[in-house]
């Protein structure tokens, strides 16, 4: 009886929900960990491995020789590397590598040890999403939202990497959630937590710059009455969470980034300018290579539709439309009150009926999620914003998208209940499980199948990977597929000691793949096709020129092997005749 009471979920969201969220997080982490070795190293990840090693070295020297470590020369020596990005995740990567791989030897691959913090943080993203959904609408909605978030091929791909895109997705939704809780509870603890989490988000990636655009209007709207009341008596009332965000947030941010402890203003200014004037890289979209402004306005909607499972989008649509309708009713209700509209005519009667269904929410969840979506997506709608990172730059929008999808699932379940009113509890449970399976099955299968080509994976709506290629959508970037070339051809077929033109793969990444036994150790990397006995081309539209250089260098247009995903070329391998 005690066990049953322990397992039974009370209506109030509590510790049991944290157990559910943590279980989701753990399951996702284990899945990511189990599949990590089959994913090569993108260019950026190699740089972060390097920086992480430098950073953790500095922290160790701080423990051993604090005075020396705190000198500017020591700080700059360690933190100048990759100083265009803040250090939270890189420090965690380094700590994980140092403890789990170097010191304790628990994790065999150094790369996996570097990646573990990002994978854990991805799990926390699902945990937070579950809690958010459970508190906002229902446990069912939270569960579906968290699962659908994890089952987006792009999220799954980036969640493996020792990079910042999924960590900032998690920090974003965590910050929004903590802020939401702060508005609900009005407690000092939650308000302080907003500042801390915002600081951590800033320390994760510059995408956090946009969080105030979500949190400030929401807090002001929620506390509008208090603010107006205070203004009437000549006082200024600012929500505590907002104060915390702008006071505690920057303190946390600066405290965790030693590079900013000297020349602070100049270095912060440089950080802003670097990202506001970021150079453009190449990326293919609808068969055209974009390498500068203007970026196509259709990029975000088309790429979201082409990469997020369609059932998730449909559920999002159902949930979002229902919430929008409720918002419209509330607006109409407000208008009715302000305009003093009473019944009498057909039109006013309709209006009265329309507003009667409006439900209010003092946490203004719909507004918050709408702002979260808008702030995460809108920078990528600007013509001047570079789009080279594909969907990874707006992963921060996906928790809100998934939460609306969770709400959509609630509505579909309710509709099923209305359609099948006479089902006994056991059959109802089976029907609900079947509905859940019907929603989750496609995203699960599509995501599993996408690995390790998550960037090349497009959803069935656009014809899958082959459909994406036909549409002229980007297949990969940053040269991580040389590992697949090794697995499928080089390790078995390359002559002993052969020189290999490694194309877009970095030297560091190649060396690490050799250290970890992913690529044969005797193969020698070269930086020019004419120096290689073997040459790789990782297929992207703008990389065609490298393909043609190999034709000339090798005197042949015939690859000896092509690495495919669903029949679509990922890497061509040439061998000097």
């Amino acid at each position, binding site marked *: 009886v005690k066990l049953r009471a322990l397992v039974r979920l009370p209506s109030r969201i509590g510790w049991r929900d944290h157990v559910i969220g943590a279980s989701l997080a753990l399951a996702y982490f284990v899945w990511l960990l189990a599949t990590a070795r089959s994913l090569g190293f993108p260019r950026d990840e190699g740089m972060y491995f390097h920086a992480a090693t430098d950073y953790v070295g500095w922290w160790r020297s701080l423990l051993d020789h604090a005075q020396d470590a705190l000198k500017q020369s020591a700080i700059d020596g360690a933190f100048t590397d990759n100083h265009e990005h803040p250090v939270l995740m890189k420090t965690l990567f380094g700590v994980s590598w140092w403890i789990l791989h170097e010191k304790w030897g628990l994790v065999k691959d150094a790369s996996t040890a570097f990646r573990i913090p990002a994978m854990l943080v991805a799990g926390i993203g699902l945990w937070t999403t579950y809690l958010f959904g459970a508190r906002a609408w229902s446990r069912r909605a939270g569960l579906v939202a968290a699962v659908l978030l994890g089952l987006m091929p792009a999220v799954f791909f980036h969640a493996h990497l020792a990079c910042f895109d999924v960590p900032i997705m998690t920090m974003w939704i965590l910050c929004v959630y903590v802020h939401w809780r702060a508005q609900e509870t009005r407690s000092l603890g939650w308000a302080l937590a907003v500042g801390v989490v915002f600081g951590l988000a800033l320390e994760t990636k510059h995408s956090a710059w946009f969080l105030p655009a979500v949190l400030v209007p929401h807090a002001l709207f929620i506390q509008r009455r208090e603010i107006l009341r205070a203004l009437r008596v000549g006082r200024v009332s600012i929500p505590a969470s907002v104060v915390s965000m702008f006071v505690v947030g920057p303190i946390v941010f600066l405290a965790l980034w030693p590079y900013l402890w000297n020349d602070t203003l100049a270095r912060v200014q440089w950080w802003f300018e670097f990202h506001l004037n970021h150079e453009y890289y190449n990326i293919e979209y609808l068969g055209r290579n974009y390498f*500068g402004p203007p970026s196509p306005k259709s990029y975000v909607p088309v790429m979201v539709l082409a990469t997020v499972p369609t*059932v998730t989008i449909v559920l999002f649509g159902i949930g979002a439309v229902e919430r929008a309708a409720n918002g419209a009713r509330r607006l109409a209700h407000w208008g009715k009150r302000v305009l003093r509209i009473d019944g009498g005519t057909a039109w006013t009667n309709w209006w009265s009926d329309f507003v009667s269904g409006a439900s209010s929410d003092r946490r203004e969840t719909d507004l918050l999620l709408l702002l979260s979506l808008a702030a995460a997506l809108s920078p990528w709608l600007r013509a001047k914003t570079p789009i080279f990172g594909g969907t990874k730059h707006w992963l921060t929008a996906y928790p809100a998208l998934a939460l609306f999808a969770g709400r959509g699932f609630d509505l579909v379940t309710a509709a099923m209940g209305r359609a099948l009113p006479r089902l006994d509890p056991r059959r109802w449970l089976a029907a609900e499980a079947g509905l859940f399976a019907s929603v989750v099955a496609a995203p699960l299968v599509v995501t599993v199948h996408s690995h390790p080509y998550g960037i090349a994976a497009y959803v069935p*709506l656009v014809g899958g990977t082959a459909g994406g290629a036909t549409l002229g959508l980007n297949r990969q970037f940053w040269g991580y597929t040389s590992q697949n070339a090794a697995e499928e051809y080089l390790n078995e077929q390359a002559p002993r000691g052969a020189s290999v033109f490694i194309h877009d793969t970095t030297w560091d990444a190649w060396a690490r793949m050799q250290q970890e036994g992913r690529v044969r150790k005797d193969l020698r990397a070269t930086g020019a096709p004419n120096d290689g006995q073997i040459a790789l081309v990782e297929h992207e539209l703008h990389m065609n020129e490298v*393909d*043609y250089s190999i034709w*000339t260098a090798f005197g042949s247009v015939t690859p000896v092997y092509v690495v495919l995903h669903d029949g679509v070329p990922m890497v061509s391998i040439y061998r000097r005749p």
Partner: protein
Amino acid sequence: VGILELGAHVVQTHGAVDTADWHAARDYVASQAKPDDLVTFAPRWVDPVGREQLGPALATLEREARPDETRFPRAFEVSIRGEHDPLLEGWRQSAEQRFGRVTVTTLENPSPVHVLDDLVSLVNGQRMQASRVDGDRVSDCTFTHAGTQSGGLGAGPALPADRFVCAAGGFVAATVAADLDYRPRRCIYAPPPGGHSFVRLRFLGVRLGTSIHGHHGLYVEAERNKTGSPVTITFRVGDAVVGSVVHHDGDGWKPFEFDTRALAASASKNDQGVPQVDLVADIESANGERRMYCFEADTR
């Protein structure tokens, strides 16, 4: 929707082409295609697989990096997923064979032309001379055989082992360049030095017909920013100008055509009675900065 999506995924991921289908298509094309025919693949992204599976005898450099389709009397389009090469639109279909998931469509060119001489094929020490002209001073470029020179992204077209090396700087060679649409173009790489200097190419014993037909462009990364000086190519026979055309950044792989009927009528004839001349091409630009220029031309 979820079930439909799952079903579509299963269908789409089981649509990959068997090697046996490719090989059957290869055997069919090998039995049918003549050296003048085009062999092409659709959709465009399947080209690497097509080259791998059909092999170098069918997927040749000349077919892959063709200047355009006009010179081919017939095309074998090897396609999957029901796709077609849009560049062959308007060609008449004369046959279609299916080999599992691979379809070979035979298409007839509605207005084929006969190429007399392809200038790209004349880039060698016997049929072409190259020189750099700096004001009054003409310095010859030597035809050499050295190691190939190539790089990664942004390095420009690779230089083949056989190339003209100019003492005053620069190279001339037949190579493959990526045009503005990232298509491969087999062409004569002849970057103009800029200012008052220019590159002069003399093609020896070129057979003349009704026209000189060609294309020119710059390596994609040299022209896509549209900041470079225009490049002019002028064709001459003796003192007579055959034609001149300017390439501006952003023009891409730009076609040109000059009427040579009058010139052919007055030219000396070879043993077969075909008019034959030494054709000169001068390539110049006001500024040589990143003028990674490439052109192709034929007489027809």
